[in-house]
Every structure is written in C-alpha cells, then in structure tokens.
C-alpha cells in the first residue's frame, strides 16, 4: 500500500502532495460520474434529458430552499463547500420541465466555482443560458437562483464565518 495508512492531510511534504493529488483525482472521477459540470447553455430538452440521465447527489439536509406555493413549485439545493469552493452541488425540485432545466443549468454554472463567484450568479444568467423558455416561465429561473443564494448564505466562506463570530 502506497500511503502506509498514514492519516490524510497530516503529513507535510510529499505525502501532503500525494493526498492532494488523490483528492483532485477523486473530484475528477466524481464530476465525471455525476456529469454535473457540462455546458450550462442549452435547450430545455437537452438540460432536462441530462438531468434525467445522470445520478443525483444528496447532502444529509438541503442547504437552501425556495418555493412558490401558488404554483406548487419547490427547489432544494444540496451543497458541499470546501476551501471556499463549491465541491458538490445538486438539487431536488418539482417535476416541471422548465424548472428542472434551470436547476440543471444552475448546477453546471456553479459546480467547482468559488463561493463568491457563485454568489454573483443570478436568474438573468439562467434565462440567458436556457434557450426557448417563454417569458411567463422565467419565474422558474428566479426560484432556482433564490434557492442557490439561500444555500450560499447559509454556508458562507470561512473568512465570512469568522467575521460573524
């Protein structure tokens, strides 16, 4: 065995670099398997089919939620942040084609990005990237973006957390 059962992230020098490489490889395999980092631009059908055809990750609890009770629409964002970057992100939402497409684009846009960068993503970006949605369905983009923003606010980067203390 290469690592001789040494605890990860504890040994400096070569072991640390090795562990970092292992982490990077694991991340690459994870993102390849989840197919969550593709091009966020596309038609509703392309994004909808991609959403149906890939596995989905769930955190123990949703990090952010948004809902429109009048239309029975709901989005949950599942999020894992490490070193101020989005390590894993996925969603659970009502089975509305437009909403699923926007959520899929949202995941593709924010996957692997820095938290501060992801915080700047908004409904306008989604509306621009997802083709062919009539204007009266753009409210789904606002719902998806609101859920992401809530998730990021509940998981601020460590520097912001320390400022709040």
């Amino acid at each position, binding site marked *: 065995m290469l690592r001789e059962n040494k605890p990860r992230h504890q040994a400096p020098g070569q072991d640390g670099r090795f562990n970092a490489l292992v982490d990077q490889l694991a991340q690459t395999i994870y993102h390849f398997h989840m197919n969550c980092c593709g091009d966020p631009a596309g038609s509703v*059908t392309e994004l*909808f089919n991609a959403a149906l055809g890939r596995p989905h990750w769930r955190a123990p609890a949703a990090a952010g939620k948004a809902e429109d009770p009048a239309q029975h629409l709901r989005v949950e964002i599942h999020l894992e942040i490490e070193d101020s970057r989005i390590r894993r992100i996925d969603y659970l939402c009502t089975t509305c*084609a437009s909403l699923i*497409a926007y959520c899929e684009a949202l995941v593709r846009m924010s996957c692997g990005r820095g938290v501060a960068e992801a915080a700047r993503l908004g409904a306008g970006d989604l509306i621009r990237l997802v083709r062919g*949605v*009539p204007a009266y*369905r753009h409210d789904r983009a606002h719902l998806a973006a609101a859920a992401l923003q809530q998730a990021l606010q509940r998981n601020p980067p460590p520097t912001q957390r320390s400022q709040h203390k």
Partner: protein
Amino acid sequence: MRVAYIFATTGHTVSYKLGRMILPQLEENRHGADVAGMFFFEDNTYLLVKGNPLGERLVKIAREKNILLMGCDQCCYEREIADKLFDGVLIGCFPDLYQALSQAPPDQVITL
C-alpha cells in the same frame, strides 16, 4: 354542457377532427357545447405555432369565446416551439391545465 378537449393522438386528429368538425362548428356557433379549453400533445402542438393558418382561426375563436389553449410544455420544448406560439397560448402540464380550468371547470373531458 361545458367540455374540454385533449388532443392526445396525432395522425388525423387536429387537421380533421378539430379543423373540419370542432372549429367550423365553433365558428358557426353550432358546436352544441361550451368549450372550456383545449390541450395539445405531441405534434398537435405545431398547430399553436404563430403563422399556422388553422391555428390562427382557432386562436381567433378562442379569444372570442374565452377558450383556454395550452400546449404540453415538454412536447413544445422538445420541438423547440415553446417561445414561438401565438400570443395568449400557454404551455404547461397537468397541474397548469387543472389550475387554469378550475375557475370554470368542464363537465366532460374528451380525449381525441
């Protein structure tokens, strides 16, 4: 009696049953029932695309008689026509259809 039509099958559904029976009867005020709404699946959604001559007649009569026209959202997205439909024609799925029809619900739903 109030009815709602669901155009679920393709083939001759829209051009024949709607185009040669239902629509002319509505235009001549002799259909025999109030139509609450019409919902279109699959290729029937092409009728709702701007510029379709039969669609133009249908939209005109729908505005006059307050008939809901709605295309299946996934069918429209798949055909990339969701943002090319006549003004006032919606896309949606069953929840949207039921919600839209709930104001003045039909007595019968007829699937063609």
